[in-house]
């Protein structure tokens, strides 16, 4: 399986602010790849640099084997792009927008576009300015998909849209994936991403926290909820074997997100007198996201600065 998008050690600064810090990821073909991150994390910048809209300070990107800065036209012929604010011409009708765009693509565009418009039940003769936000998003999606692109890049396409429209988008994404094409998606809607994503990547403060297939991530990470009898006693040695990604202690309960949790360790922990309850669960994406965007090191730093201490003196 070749890579559709390959990002190598990419860095981007705006003035003094580092927006992307040494990002590397590879998107295999035929998957739904979700990029998660808070507002301002750099998702849009990364996506724009994939399309050749931003120059990078260092590193390189290749999309479909091409360099976006050198061959933007070829990339656009193979990549469909839906942004969060599609700048469609307000004075055009839905049909005219399709007709206009079809001039730049090979034959078949109009047929596909018409079919999709039909499917979405959009009125072909109304002007874009008279359409609601959801309908405009559907038009933008139809335009991006009508030429059967190998890669569909979507930058928060369903932000602010109602559930019906969001479902339409999801179904289209699934269609693409089922047909063997790649979808690169940046989104906030964690529930939706959880259903359809093959791979996830989490971007936080310009750094890529994790890139992994979702299933693998869910099976390798465990959420541990431990209840202690005496919070001041040290934790058992078995804990040293675990890679702690995230940990919060409130009084006599510890909520942790760890990697490498095996049944052997569980057995060992259960023998410990201080721990009277151990709950190990498979994490869902939301918990994973929260855990990865508040990594354990930052929590430790906060505690060192004296902010975390108060938590431990709370009585549960």
């Amino acid at each position, binding site marked *: 399986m070749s890579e559709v998008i390959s990002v190598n050690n990419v860095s981007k600064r705006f003035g003094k602010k580092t927006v992307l810090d040494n990002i590397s990821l590879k998107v295999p073909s035929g998957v739904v790849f979700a990029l998660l991150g808070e507002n301002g994390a750099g998702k849009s910048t990364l996506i724009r640099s994939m399309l050749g809209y931003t120059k990078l300070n260092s590193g390189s990107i290749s999309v479909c084997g091409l360099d976006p800065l050198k061959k933007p036209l070829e990339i656009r012929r193979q990549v469909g792009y839906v942004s969060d604010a599609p700048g469609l011409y307000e004075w055009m009708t839905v049909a005219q927008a399709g007709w206009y765009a079809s001039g730049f693509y090979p034959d078949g565009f109009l047929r596909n576009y018409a079919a999709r418009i039909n499917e979405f039940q959009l009125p072909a003769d109304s002007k874009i300015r008279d359409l609601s936000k959801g309908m405009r998003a559907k038009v933008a999606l139809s335009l991006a998909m009508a030429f059967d692109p190998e890669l569909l890049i979507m930058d928060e396409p369903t932000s602010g849209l109602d559930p019906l429209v969001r479902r339409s988008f999801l179904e289209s994404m699934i269609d693409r*994936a089922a047909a063997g094409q790649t979808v690169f998606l940046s989104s906030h809607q964690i529930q939706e991403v959880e259903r*359809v994503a093959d791979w996830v990547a989490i971007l936080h403060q310009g750094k890529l926290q994790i890139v992994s297939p979702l299933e693998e991530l869910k099976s390798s990470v465990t959420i541990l909820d431990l209840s202690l009898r005496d919070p001041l006693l040290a934790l058992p040695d078995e804990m040293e074997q675990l890679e702690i990604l995230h940990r919060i202690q409130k009084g006599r309960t510890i909520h942790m997100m760890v990697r490498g949790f095996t049944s052997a360790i569980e057995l060992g922990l259960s023998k410990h007198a201080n721990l009277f309850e151990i709950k190990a669960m498979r994490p869902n994406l939301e918990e994973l996201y929260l855990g990865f965007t508040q990594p354990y090191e930052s929590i430790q730093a906060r505690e060192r600065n004296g902010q975390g201490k108060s938590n431990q003196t709370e009585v549960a």
Partner: protein
Amino acid sequence: MQLSIEPNNGIPIYEQLVRQIKYAVAEGILVPGQVIPSVRDMAKQLTLNPNTVQRAYFQLQNEEILQSLRGRGVAVCEGAKKQCVADRQQLLAERLAAVLDEAIRGGLDEDRLRSMFEKALKNAIRTGEKQS
């Protein structure tokens, strides 16, 4: 056939799909020979990743619950019901074991547990008779 998938309840999605299809076969909602939606259609219907659905179907095909008909899709195998019922019983046994485990750990003694179990069993049979 109504399937509901909860992506965040801790059970892998493909596993949920497998279990629910097995349940449907065991209950008779899906009869042997019935064609179920293709990977693509099922994925669209449930808004799931097609690869996940593919994995579930693959596993079911391996367990000979589903078989692929060339050109026509995927259908339920002939002897699938028995297997599904057995699997379902296995699942129930596991669930029962987990409940009992929790009860014992919670400090319930055996006699109390047994009386609770008898009472629940009687109720279940009664409601089951009412339904059928």
